């Protein structure tokens, strides 16, 4: 393992973050450009911090997102930078955004559960588009009849929205609170919507639920 001085380390990390096509984590930096060098965790942190500061007054910024560090343009410059491309940024329908929001806040969640909350069917197209964009993925199957797929968001989703973790999502707190309340009533509400055959069972559950709610 070779030694590397601070100036060289900074240049190398900087260049790597610039030429990589995607965000690079510390781990990835160590496994690639830094693999030949002895670099302490502290030295790497210091260099990254220095780079973040260096670019603060500039037109681009070094930011940390879910899958690592990346350089990106200053948010406020977007009206003019957009002029570099002919096509405008894609817009997403309310249906898609609500579905994505539910998956983000309630993951893992089934399609049925999304439909339950939204009160309307979720089109296969929405699920397909979100999957193709690499924003959501199937993380398992719920152990109920039909074993429906459980969806969760990906790192790509967080990267796209410039987030490092799900806890940074806006209104995350309100959701957490609601989720607590909903958890108790969730089973009951699914049954209640069901056709008449399930009415008996739904009533039973409703009774059980009212006990819970009155606690």
């Amino acid at each position, binding site marked *: 393992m070779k030694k590397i001085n601070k100036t060289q380390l900074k240049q190398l990390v900087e*260049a790597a973050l610039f030429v990589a096509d995607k965000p690079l984590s510390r781990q990835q930096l160590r496994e690639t450009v830094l693999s030949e060098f002895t670099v302490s965790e502290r030295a790497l942190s210091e260099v990254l911090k220095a780079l973040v500061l260096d670019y603060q007054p500039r037109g681009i910024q070094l930011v940390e997102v879910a899958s690592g560090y*990346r*350089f990106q343009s200053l948010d406020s410059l977007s009206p003019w*930078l957009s002029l570099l491309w002919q096509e405008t940024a*894609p817009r997403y329908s309310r249906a898609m955004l609500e579905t994505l929001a539910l998956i983000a806040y309630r993951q893992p969640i089934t399609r049925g559960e999304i439909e339950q*909350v939204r*009160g309307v069917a979720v089109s296969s197209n929405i699920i397909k588009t979100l999957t193709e964009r690499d924003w959501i993925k199937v993380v398992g199957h719920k152990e109920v009849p039909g074993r429906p797929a459980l969806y969760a968001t990906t790192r790509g989703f967080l990267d796209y929205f*410039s987030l490092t973790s799900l806890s940074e999502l*806006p*209104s995350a707190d309100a959701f957490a609170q609601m989720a607590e309340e909903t958890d108790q009533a969730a089973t009951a509400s699914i049954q209640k919507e069901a056709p008449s055959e399930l009415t008996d069972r739904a009533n039973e559950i409703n009774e059980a639920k009212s006990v819970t709610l009155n606690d």
Partner: protein
Amino acid sequence: MSETDSATEPSAVTAGSNEPVQQPLPLAFINGEAVIEKPQDLYIPPDALEVILESFEGPLDLLLYLIRKQKFDITTLPIADVTRQYMEYVEVMRELRLELAAEYLLMAAILAEIKSRLLLPRRSDDDDDEEDPRAELIRRLKEYELVKQAAEDLDSQPRLERDIFTVHVDTTESVAPVRVEPDVSLQELVLAFSQAMKRAEAFEHHTIEREALSTRERMSMILSMVSAAQYTPLESLFTPEEGKAGVIVTFLAILELVKESLLLCVQAGPYARIHVKLGSHEEDQQDSA
């Protein structure tokens, strides 16, 4: 669904006849302008209504809109008013023969059911178990409102392609992909050999043994030590430090190479130094290489 349909009809009628006259029904916003007209009094172009219908993300969204428009509190949901307004809206859609999503009819049935349960006299001994029939709907409305807000928040979150752009810096030409060679274990190698040998016919003398190996290794070594262009002193091929066994192996290897005409041995006269070089054919080979 037929049950749901039949449930919708009478409740719609009930809603209209039992309740006092309400404010004009606000249908929706079109381009930010609220459309507040009694649907039965006003001709609405079908196109516009489709826009209205499409502007709602389903029955919960429509209900929320009605509640907010009337400045009602979700938690004290005035079910009679909301139900009546909802039914009027659904009726207009039916009149205009718009394809009405089943979810809207299902909601109509739920509203009717809640209303009828509220109208039923309660038996005193049931009171403890009976919860407010509106509770579940209120919970769903609150939950949906939260999702709606979350979707709006998500949409205003700075995102790639629209608000932020990733940088694109080229490398200089001297950057070339690094090829990572696959790993091979010694065990794999030995097994590959045993497999190859297994397939080979038994009479072929493909031999393996420790001595043979070292002789053959020495043969390879000698071949790489000598050249075709010039003679190498024979003694330089021996390494006395190896001891007797090493010298013998080297000698055997030289004999084997000479036998296969890979090595030429030359001695100028009796007791003169013996020199070796690569076989005669090797000369051309080496020159051209």
